[in-house]
């Protein structure tokens, strides 16, 4: 219980990941979905860093990959917010259910 190991971190990561998926499924707001994506990425990142830590840390591959993930998440968020604004400009809402038209 008080001996924290890899499994502890993996459980937290899993739960965060699943919550992110739940948010992505249930939210209608495009930015809400983006928040879900960020949660999923964070869950994955905890995995990477935890595996790095509990494999001796003789190299830091996990951390470097998680750095790439963070950078990509930032880029993805910038683009996604731009898309949201375009979406809003065209449809006057950010409800993704209204995005099923090709009219644009």
């Amino acid at each position, binding site marked *: 219980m008080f001996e924290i190991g890899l499994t502890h971190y993996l459980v937290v990561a899993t739960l965060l990941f699943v919550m992110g998926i739940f948010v992505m499924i249930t939210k209608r707001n495009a930015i809400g979905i983006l928040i879900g994506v960020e*949660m999923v990425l964070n869950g994955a990142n905890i995995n990477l860093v935890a595996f790095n830590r509990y494999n001796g840390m003789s190299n830091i591959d996990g951390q470097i990959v998680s750095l790439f993930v963070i950078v990509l998440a930032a880029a993805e968020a910038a683009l996604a917010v731009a898309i949201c604004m375009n979406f809003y400009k065209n449809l006057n809402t950010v409800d993704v259910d209204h995005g099923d038209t090709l009219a644009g």
Partner: protein
Amino acid sequence: MTLRLKKILLLMTPLAIALSFATAPVQAADTDLSLSDQGIQTSADGGLLEALMFYACAGVTLACGFAICLSKNIVRMAVYLFGTLAAVALMYFLLLANFIGVIQLIVYAGGTLILLIFGVMLTSKSPWAKFEVKRSELIAAGIVCALFAGMLLFVVVNAEWPLETDAVVVGSSMTQFGTGLLTDYLVPFEAISVLLLVVMIGAAYMARQE
């Protein structure tokens, strides 16, 4: 005129957070002094304190995540996301990944989150924009996610992970980072730089008004 107990408790939160951060991994007896002088933690074998710290972080992470799931208000969701991100950053500190923790704070909490809030403010018709979701949909999503979570947890708990618990750090992790980024990971690093540039131009182009 009353100063309620709640206020006092809230006042204590920064102290509590500070304490939890400060007492993060306690250094082991065989700490190499030259390394600790450079501010490098070589190993986290803090026992009780580390455990408490971990449970606090995990608790905040999951509570905020759960609050995001339940919340209907998009700005509140963003604030809860901030809580999640900060707690995950603390968890990185616990995992001896200081640099990743800091980057998480500066890029995620300081940059991406602000971008999200900008997005919210630019696209919400009223400040209280809410979107209704059908109850049946919620239940279905909950069941699916619960099943998925159960499956993943089963795998995670029962799997045999190859472990090397003795953490060995040679020099600063920052040095490793720098060397890694300019040697082994040079190609992905450059690719990501180019990607960032493209994304920057693309985002500016897309958000622009015709």
